[in-house]
Each structure stands twice: as structure tokens, then as C-alpha cells.
């Protein structure tokens, strides 16, 4: 049986990818960001999950607004990394597992999450910005990705609560998969930032830190917040933190925060966090059996 062993929250600022590609890992202005990811990469190298399941958003790259799904699941053995206007990056295609992706899709649709399916489509910095900081990629990625795209660009967006429930359904989907796979769920985006209009450059570190505390211990309060609340507190584009809630929904009610790095350099509060499930990976179904 597949099981979720933990979760990762990670900003997906495109500039991280640019700095990575330019080899600025040791540059004093960037080292705090890259060093912040190292404990998470080390944990992944030690735990060796087979799967990273990403809740991410497409930045109107693979999908345009004339056909922009609320929730979309990527299906494919390989996903190219998208050209977003600056040409291709030197990274191998992201690996997939069609049987697992199809299973997750079937479970979610049967639970009334009426997904769109994207087959073999390119994936943009919503995944590709943090991925090489989490996993090595030479000669190839060590595992597969299940990509779930969430509309955080064109209102109406799914509510925070709907994203939280999506995560809960994803957990049931993973735990009903018969193969013995280790899965880590990743929520990308955030934290505070606004990058359009005269309010560009808005940040709110107090709110960011409060968000991280609520995320750990009171996710229900975050699920009850409206989009306008996120925009007011963290800036317009921070509404994408509803994708973190999807990740949270796939974890235990009680989680342990193993790592947190927070680096606000210019306009986005770049953050990476690592969470372990309370029972470190014992599936809920198995625990129910034990309790009975």
C-alpha cells in the first residue's frame, strides 16, 4: 500500500530557477535561500520517497485563460519543463507514473472532484522552480511526480476549504494504491508577495509567521479564510497559499515541523518547510485496523 510520509511547503519564485541555472548557490545574496533547502533535500535523500505529489499552479504557460481548469491532474511518463519566454532550461523532463496518476485521477473523480486531465503537457516554474532544489537531476530525477494544478490566477478560484478537502481526498487515493510506494506531498507558492499594480512589493512577515503556525496547528482556521483575506494579509499573489492547504489536507491532523527556512530578499517571502506525519507514515486505514 502506498503511504504519505510527509509534506513540503516550498515557494516557487521563478528567480530561484534563474539563480539555480546561473550557479548562484554560493552567492551571499542567494545562499540563505539555497541553504534553506539543503536539510529538505537531505531528508529526501535519506527517506527516498518514490513519489513527489505536487499541488502547484500553471502560470498561464501550458494553459491559457480561454480554457483554464480549476483542478487538473497531469498524466504522463514524462513532462517537459516549459519554455516561459526565456528559452528552455537545462533540466531533464520530469518523470511520471501513468498507472499511479490514473489511479489518483479515478479516486478523485469518484469522490466528486471533477478534474481536468493534462497528458504529457509541459510543466512550468510552479514545479520546476523548487524541484531541482529538492531532488538531484543527474543523470535523471530519482523518482516520479504526480502534478495537480490548481487555478490561483483567474477568479473564481477554488476556496481554501475546497483545496484542503482536495488534499484529504488525495490522501485516500494514495492510501488505496496497492503498490508499496513512499509519497511526499508538496504544496508550492507563497508566502507573502504582490507582483502586480502599485501595491507590488507588499510583504507581511508577521502574517507569514502566523500562517506557518496556523498551518501546523489550526489549518481549519486557514481553510475558513476567504480569498480577499489572503490578498489583504499577504498580497494579491499570496492567495496561492491555498495550495499549501491542499498539501496540509493530505497530512495527519497532528504534524511535526522538521524544518523551516524563511528568506525575504526582494519581493517574495521565500519559504521552505518540511513536515512529518504524526505516526510517520502509518496509513490511516492500517491504524484503524489496529485500533479495532
Amino acid at each position, binding site marked *: 500500500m502506498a503511504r504519505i510520509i510527509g509534506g513540503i511547503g516550498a515557494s516557487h519564485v*521563478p*528567480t530561484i530557477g534563474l*539563480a539555480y541555472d546561473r550557479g548562484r548557490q554560493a*552567492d*551571499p*545574496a*542567494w545562499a540563505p*535561500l539555497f541553504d534553506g533547502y539543503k536539510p529538505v533535500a537531505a531528508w529526501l535523500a535519506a527517506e527516498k520517497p518514490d513519489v513527489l505529489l505536487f499541488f502547484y499552479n500553471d*502560470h*498561464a*504557460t501550458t494553459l*491559457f*485563460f*480561454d480554457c483554464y481548469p480549476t483542478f487538473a491532474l497531469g498524466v504522463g511518463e514524462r513532462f517537459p519543463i*516549459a*519554455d*516561459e*519566454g*526565456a*528559452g528552455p532550461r537545462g533540466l531533464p523532463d520530469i518523470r511520471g507514473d501513468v498507472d499511479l496518476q490514473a489511479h489518483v485521477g479515478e479516486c478523485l473523480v469518484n469522490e466528486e472532484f471533477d478534474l481536468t486531465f493534462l497528458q504529457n503537457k509541459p510543466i512550468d516554474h510552479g514545479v520546476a522552480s523548487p524541484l531541482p532544489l529538492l531532488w538531484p537531476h543527474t543523470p535523471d530525477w530519482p523518482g516520479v511526480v504526480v502534478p495537480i494544478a490548481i487555478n490561483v*490566477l*483567474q*477568479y*473564481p*478560484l477554488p*476556496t481554501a476549504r475546497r483545496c484542503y478537502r482536495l488534499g484529504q481526498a488525495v490522501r485516500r487515493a494514495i492510501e488505496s494504491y496497492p503498490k508499496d510506494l513512499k509519497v511526499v506531498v508538496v504544496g508550492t507558492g507563497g508566502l507573502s508577495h*504582490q*507582483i*502586480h*499594480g*502599485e*501595491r*507590488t*512589493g507588499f510583504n507581511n512577515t508577521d502574517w507569514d509567521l502566523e500562517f506557518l503556525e496556523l498551518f501546523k496547528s489550526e489549518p481549519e482556521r486557514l481553510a475558513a479564510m*476567504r*480569498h*480577499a483575506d489572503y*490578498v*489583504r494579509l499577504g498580497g*494579491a*499573489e499570496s492567495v496561492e497559499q491555498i495550495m499549501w492547504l491542499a498539501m496540509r489536507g493530505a497530512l495527519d491532523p497532528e504534524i511535526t515541523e522538521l524544518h523551516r527556512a524563511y528568506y*525575504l*530578499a*526582494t*519581493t517574495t517571502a521565500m519559504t521552505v518547510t518540511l513536515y512529518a506525519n504524526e505516526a510517520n507514515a502509518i496509513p490511516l486505514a492500517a491504524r484503524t485496523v489496529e485500533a479495532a
Partner: protein
Amino acid sequence: MTLSNPELDGIETLAGTYPFDLRICNRTLNFNRFFWNMIRVENREAFWSDEEAAMSAAGLKEEEKALVRARDWLGIVQYGVNFFVLEKWARVVKKSNLEVYAIMRGETFEAFLSTRRVPESR
């Protein structure tokens, strides 16, 4: 503009914020598509070789062409373009996101950077 989405109640009080919704996007779909198309190399090359011809081929309205000619980043956002397609065009005209941010705030690049915690991470 009609905002009838209760999830967005109160957002109109946030100055300098332009929520991008279906009503706006439907009005500006073609202009948004012009910027989105910059993910393809042939569209980038067409723009580099002849901006006016590229804009006409894309069916831009005169008001939209004027915004592009003027490199009026804030005006384009206020007109109803989503920043995430706009940033694709920023790559084409060789502007970094930070430079665009400064312009949208009405600041010089240096003045904007001086408000940031680690301006060296530009």
C-alpha cells in the same frame, strides 16, 4: 466592473490591486493571448523583427498597441492583463521582473531596490 464573488468582498478597498476575474479576462482575452504567445520562439522572433506587424497580426486594438509601444506596464495591468502572461513578454523585451515591479510602483529601479532587504539578490 461587477464583483459578485463573495470570496472577494472587500478587495476593492485595496488600492493598487486589480483582481483578475472572468469578466475582465473575457474582455481582454485577445490582449492576454498576445503576451501568452511569447512562450513560442516564432512569436518572440516575429515581435523582435517587426513589433507593429506582430501586433497587427495578433489583432490588437489601437489602445492596446499604444500600451505596448509605450511599454506602459502599469497601464497594461490596469487594462486587464494578468501579470503571469505579461512576464513572458518582459523576457522578450529583456526586462527583469524586478525592473517591471519598480515601474509599476512608479519608482526608479535604484529607489525600488533600496526598499528591499537584500537588493544584491537582483
